[in-house]
């Protein structure tokens, strides 16, 4: 019984925090917000040197072969520093999909490049009705003569504006069971007929895009995994992505509360630091309770997912529902606790608030997460 991090993981956390404090201060985040693509190749190279881009890539393919628990250690720190860039899209979602579904040739081609920081990935699943359901995938890949032609429009694709390869979920069979009939294709972002457009949105340090495909031709060897059988892989990889996202929400909230507490200690009104007032103290205490409870759910979700336990999907749904609401509520209260200064562009708090809104909304609705929990307990 050890529901905690190892000594090694704690050292890794310290090192990660130091690295991000030095290399990813709020000034860097703001620079990325103003950047055309929210991407800095030099920063990405540093992540690769640290082994972060290859964290979930097996050693045989040039990666670090870390665990999901190692990843959530990083994720909390990513949250604390609002780290910009296509980190999850490439290092978690993309890399894991290749590990799960890729053939030897594909793994040998992509994974070492991802690990060394030379190749960026993203997964395009959602469309107009933006929910993670197999039946909603209408982008179609027409097959024949060793080639497919893909047409359709994807939305909310994370960091597609910098991706080298876009992994597209497309329907390959119209008469399949509800969770079948969808396949994955590795599409070169430069393909003819493929058009990428950013969707201006709340978190300017991480972008989301529309990917419009008009008869994009793709060779048969770009099919990732078996034809028609991609959906379980997509569900599993989103589970593995959303665990660290929950931890990032925890990291964002924890850092925001720290900023508030530091401020309440020095902000003087009525001749005393306002941190002495119980109206504010108790509000901070309640935020701490929420953060710690959310942390516990996120850690358990990580454990269950890493061990692939039967309750992993429900454990994740619990963490998603709780951490999403907790982070929104924490950010909202932190703005209030800072008062006027917290409502300015100049103050860094809104970077945290923006990231929290975007992460939570990208995971789906808290209503659907709670319904998943209800189904497990009430049928």
């Amino acid at each position, binding site marked *: 019984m050890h529901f905690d991090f190892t000594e090694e993981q704690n050292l890794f956390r310290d090192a990660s925090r130091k690295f991000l404090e030095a290399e990813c201060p709020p000034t860097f985040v703001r620079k990325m917000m103003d950047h055309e693509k929210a991407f800095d190749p030099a920063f990405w190279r540093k992540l690769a040197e640290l082994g972060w881009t290859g964290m979930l890539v097996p050693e045989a393919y040039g990666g670090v072969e870390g665990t999901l628990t190692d990843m959530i250690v990083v994720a909390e720190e990513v949250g604390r520093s609002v780290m910009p860039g296509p980190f999850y899209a490439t290092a978690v979602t993309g890399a894991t999909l290749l590990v799960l579904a890729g053939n030897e040739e594909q793994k040998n081609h992509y994974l070492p490049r991802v690990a060394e920081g030379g190749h960026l990935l993203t997964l395009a699943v959602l469309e107009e009705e933006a929910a993670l359901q197999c039946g909603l995938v209408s982008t179609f890949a027409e097959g024949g003569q060793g080639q497919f032609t893909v047409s359709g429009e994807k939305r909310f694709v994370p960091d597609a504006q910098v991706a080298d390869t876009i992994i597209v979920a497309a329907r390959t069979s119209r008469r399949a069971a509800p969770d079948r009939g969808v396949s994955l294709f590795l599409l070169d972002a430069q393909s003819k007929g493929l058009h990428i457009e950013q969707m201006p949105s709340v978190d300017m340090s991480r972008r989301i895009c529309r990917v419009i495909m008009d008869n994009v031709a793709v060779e048969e060897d770009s099919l990732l995994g078996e034809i028609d059988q991609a959906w379980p892989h997509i569900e599993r990889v989103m589970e593995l992505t959303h665990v660290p996202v929950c931890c990032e929400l925890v990291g964002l909230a924890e850092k925001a509360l720290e900023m508030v507490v530091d401020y309440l200690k020095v902000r003087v009104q009525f001749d005393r630091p306002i941190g002495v007032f119980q109206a504010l103290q*108790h509000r901070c205490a309640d935020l701490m*309770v929420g953060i710690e409870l959310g942390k516990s759910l996120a850690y358990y979700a990580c454990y269950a997912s890493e061990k692939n336990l039967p309750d992993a999907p429900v454990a994740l749904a619990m963490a998603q*529902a709780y951490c999403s609401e907790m982070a929104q509520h924490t950010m909202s209260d932190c703005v209030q606790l800072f008062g006027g200064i917290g409502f300015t562009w100049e103050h860094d708090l809104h970077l945290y608030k923006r990231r929290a809104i975007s992460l939570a909304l990208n995971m789906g609705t808290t209503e659907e997460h709670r319904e998943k929990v209800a189904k497990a307990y*009430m049928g």
Partner: protein
Amino acid sequence: MDLEFTPEEEAFRQQVRTWLEENLPKDYDPDEYFSTPDVDKKVEISLAWQKKLYDGGWTGLNWPKEYGGRGATVIEQHIFNEELGRARAPMAAINFIGVAMVAPTIIHWGTDEQKKRYLPKILSSEEIWCQGFSEPGAGSDLAALSTQAVEDGDHYIVNGQKTWTSLAHYSDLMYLLARTNKDVKKHKGLSAFAVDMKSPGITVRPLVQLTGDSDFNEVFFEDVKVPKENMLGPRDQGWDVAITTLMYERAGMGAGMEYEHALNQLVALAEKTKRSGVSASRDPWVRQQIAQFIIEWNAVKYTDLRALSKQIRGEPPGWEGSICKLGSSYMNLRMTAFAAELLGPYGQLTRDCPQSVDQGAWLKQVLMARAFTIGGGTSEIQRSILATRALGLPRK
């Protein structure tokens, strides 16, 4: 992270489970036990059960062997508590103050004579203890208490009043906190005593609670003689002694398995409650609400496990106790209110009404729910602890 138990620990769990199956009285009805307003009967069942646990060698599981315990590991104690909760065995409440609060305090602060005198009879439940801390003028501000103990030869003479004293009318001894020095700061002038409840001058008057039940009392002291050797810990250091005790109280509360049982009951209630001919458990709003309570309860349970991991490593208890107490009591408050709402007009019926649902248990829980946000340190005190000690916000 590893939440698995070792084969030895699993074997221990099996041993506990088997013992419970064989030893829980055949006619024991947990639903009746947890909802009866008949305190005498409840105490009787609890005492009989405590004696059975003692005979089976299960009381003071984690006490050092030299004091009659088993020197069990933190994990074994955790497993044991979990199994008691799962079996919905009678609560340890009757002897909780003795076993979980007084004993660790005596082991920490007591003299050899005191250890010999008190510990064996706590273990065997021959002597039941109550806790004499709170007073009408000293609740959250415990150190402001005014019950006095004045030195007089080989005795102290105690005068004053205690209140909210749980089970005083069934207790043999009181763990008393009284003022022995008025001339110093309020935290510095207190001492702790073991007081024989049969001493002349003690009057116990039961208080009827908001629920209509009577679990606690007022206790009046009029020139009560307490022998000097009954002082626990050094004179005027009673505050430090009490802090030791309260740490054990906080560690002993938190994640109660009864909440989990109540959640299962709530699911069953939603299932059997019909709305326009359809089970309320099909209603999306009802499902969302219940899911939320389940999520919050799991968050508390996992936080308790994080605290357990710290304890296993021998680290001092962190803030998890306050967090679990705030989290679980707040969840329980809303959960019970929601159950009443599900019941509609039936939510107001007491167990005496033949038409009541679940023997009126939900009404009782609705009325009881506030006990957990007040007792054992109010939610507001818990928040102040977190704000000033965990977050480091200034006191003044």
